[in-house]
């Protein structure tokens, strides 16, 4: 039944080629917005809404979904090339994407990222098209205790992204968790640690933190190295990674894509969380976990497939319940309403003429993304060969503009710079910054939902283990930490053995 509707929707879209043009425009604009740090898919969509007023609703929506898809993908390009994620969702991609591009294989990194985005996104779109109502019911099972347990599970991924020292990773995460307590507390209505500065009432906002931690810190590192270290000339190389490599990554992509779609469909979880969870899971189950963080192809494929899979997932609760899955779908919800369609259970009854073109459009967006991404990869990869003495000031400028433009605030620029300086010194002392970021994403979710659960249970802690989903995630978190710790030990052993062996050879 739904298959038939979907075919009909494809027919409608193809009957008017301008629809395809709008998708193309959306995806391209999305990629550009996404790869500029500070300009997110959310902003791209919000800025474009007024332009869609004059379009027929379906075409306007297709364009907005194109921006969504392209924006989430585009963030990975700057993450890979300049170690500055263009969007929060790409923060996990830089862990392996940037090392690979430092080895001169930027083209390959982008190529894998593009294919993974396509595979993940398509899986997400298909799940959305065929299973939306069922998945929406699943998302509703998540109450405060479940969100808390999920946040704890997410935080257990720290063990996968800590790099050389678990202790330093844990310290970094704790710093991040402490930072999230700054700002107005919506549960009690009390400002915390704001020092009467109104700019801090909203807390340390995410975008300036992201730009500071990665963008500015990277600029400082570049400045330091500029005259000393010769620049690695990147061979743009083959545009398409060899089929054999892609094929061996397909299982990872498929798994991460579906995980992303399910994660994204839970209201309140976004593409960023999906990417981190998929990264941790890929590392946990990988045959070569020691390569993660050094430029592992799996480490690029997993988060990229997951964050684009999550785009389809996030649309599900928005369309079926009128509850947005994340920030971008909140904007899309606004756009749908302005065009006269109120998302929610009635949309599926009254407006199948809009619902199915949305599904079909989402699938087409992925195809367009693959084509645009692969043909642009060569161009993007060339960017990294620009002299760092020119590139670094440009990144610096982009970081300033990016941190300003989120809320048109100079306070945020100062904030990002300060965080950048701190992150630079953290890097010097070999503290990883990604755990800070993960803590910033998950901290408020964990704290608020723990307090909410305890309010609900009237301070009875057993609420976290007596509810099945909550208990399951807590157990998963324990398993994750345990197996992560064992794997970490093993890698250290291998490294130690290799070191002694090489010493023997020298001796």
């Amino acid at each position, binding site marked *: 039944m739904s298959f038939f509707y979907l075919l009909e929707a494809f027919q409608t879209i193809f009957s008017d080629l301008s629809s395809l043009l709008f998708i193309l425009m959306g995806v391209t604009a999305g990629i550009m917005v996404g790869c500029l740090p500070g300009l997110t898919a*959310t*902003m791209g*969509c*919000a*800025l474009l*809404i*007024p332009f869609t*007023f004059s379009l027929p609703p379906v075409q306007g929506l297709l364009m907005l979904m194109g921006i969504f898809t392209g924006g989430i993908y585009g963030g990975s390009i700057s993450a890979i090339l300049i170690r500055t994620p263009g969007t929060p969702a790409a923060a996990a991609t830089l862990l392996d994407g940037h090392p690979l591009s430092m080895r001169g294989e930027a083209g390959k990194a982008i190529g894998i990222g593009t294919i993974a985005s396509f595979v993940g996104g398509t899986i997400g779109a298909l799940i959305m098209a065929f299973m939306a109502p069922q998945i929406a019911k699943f*998302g*509703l*099972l*998540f*109450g*405060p205790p479940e969100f808390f347990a999920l946040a704890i599970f997410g935080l257990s991924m720290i063990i996968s992204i800590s790099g050389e020292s678990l202790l330093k990773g844990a310290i970094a995460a704790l710093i991040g968790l402490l930072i999230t307590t700054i700002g*107005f*507390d*919506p*549960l*009690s*209505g*009390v*400002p915390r640690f704001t020092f009467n500065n*109104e*700019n*801090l*009432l*909203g807390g340390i*906002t995410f975008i300036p933190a992201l730009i500071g931690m990665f963008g500015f810190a990277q600029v400082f590192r570049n400045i330091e190295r500029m005259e000393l270290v010769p620049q690695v000339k990147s061979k743009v190389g083959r545009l398409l990674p060899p089929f054999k490599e892609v094929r061996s990554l397909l299982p990872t992509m498929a798994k991460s894509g579906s995980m992303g779609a399910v994660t994204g469909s839970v*209201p*309140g979880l976004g593409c960023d969380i999906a990417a981190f969870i998929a990264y941790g899971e890929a590392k946990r189950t990988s045959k070569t976990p020691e390569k993660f963080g050094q430029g592992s192809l799996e480490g690029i494929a997993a988060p990229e497939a997951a964050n684009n899979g999550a785009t389809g997932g996030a649309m599900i*609760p928005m369309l079926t*319940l*009128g*509850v*947005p899955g994340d*920030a971008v779908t*909140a*904007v*899309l*919800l*606004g*756009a749908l*309403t*302005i065009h*006269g369609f*109120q*998302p*929610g*259970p*009635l949309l599926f*009854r009254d407006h199948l003429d809009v619902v199915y073109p949305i599904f079909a459009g989402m699938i087409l967006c992925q195809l367009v993304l693959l084509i645009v991404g692969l043909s642009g990869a060569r161009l993007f990869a060339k960017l990294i060969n620009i002299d760092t003495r020119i590139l670094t000031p440009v990144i610096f400028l982009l970081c300033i503009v990016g941190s300003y433009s989120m*809320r*048109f*605030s100079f306070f945020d620029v100062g904030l990002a710079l300060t965080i950048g300086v701190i992150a630079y010194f953290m890097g010097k002392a070999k503290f990883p910054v990604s755990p800070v970021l993960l803590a910033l994403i998950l901290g408020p979710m964990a704290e*608020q939902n723990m307090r*909410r659960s305890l*309010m*609900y249970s*009237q301070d009875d802690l057993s609420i976290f283990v007596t509810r099945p989903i909550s208990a399951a995630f807590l157990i998963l978190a324990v398993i994750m930490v345990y197996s992560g710790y064992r794997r970490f030990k093993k890698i250290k052993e291998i490294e130690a053995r290799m070191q002694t062996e090489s010493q023997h050879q020298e001796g």
Partner: protein
Amino acid sequence: MKKTLCLAAAAILAFSSSSFAAFPEKDITLVVPWSAGGGTDTIARALVKNAKQHIGVNVNVVNKTGGQGIVGMGATKMARPDGYTVGLITFGLSTYKLMGLSQLTYRDFDLLQLLNQSSAGLSVNADSKWNSLDEVMQHAKANPRDVSLGHTGAGVAWHLSAAALGVMYDTEFNFIPFDGGAPTRSALLGGHVDLAATGIDEVKQLHEAGEVKVLAVNALQRHPAFPDVPTLAEAGYKIDAPVLDWRGLALPKNVPADRKQFLKEGFKKMFDDPEFRKYCEDVGLILVYEDSAGFEQFLANMEEVLTPTLDAVGLIR
């Protein structure tokens, strides 16, 4: 000599641009203190959609978010008073000073007009054993803190509206604050809270689809989009001055009178645009117009209504 000439030239320029050039000669900015895509933002964008038709220039929405709306409203207050910056102000402005969050009050602005008032709706899940407000209240009275009541955040209109009901009728709810309307709605749909206090328009579609039962609306009259939902008084729990959510337009102080007049008339025209009216009707938003004086009167009353309620829930500072 040179300096005087320069000054004179500058004075002439300034003079000519302020009194001879037609206002507005460039686009106007509307500062929205909430994020893009949210309820307030969507209304703002719908309002200014046909601006060019009505005032000859576009009105561009700029979202300055953060600090529970304080950052954006503060930006409007501090904006250059040349008439090119108009700000959207919302309910929080009635509570900031009382809650000790900021010194900002409506007195810091030149008010343009009131746009809308929303009232709270109390809803239960469709599967709930309760079918009327009275049943819930009876149960809650007999079992203090047994009924969990989800709301959209401490100090938000819906929280205060429900709190006022509890205080007035000596009933203790177990308040569970969520962060905004969407998570509150999903908690209600998922059965994670017994009762939810949200803007009534926020549950319009769920109500029509039969997913939730709206037990009462905290207003003096019934809501046109919910003709079958009784007011609190009709449900047996009369409240004289209900807490209402509101949105309005304001200017920084000291905008020249002629420009203010122009904006007043201009925004009124956009407000009366049939397309905007149709949109608001579709989403269940009640438009209420008050001019500057009426708006000011409304806000002064609101502070008086809110003070005892905020005190009752321990949010006065």
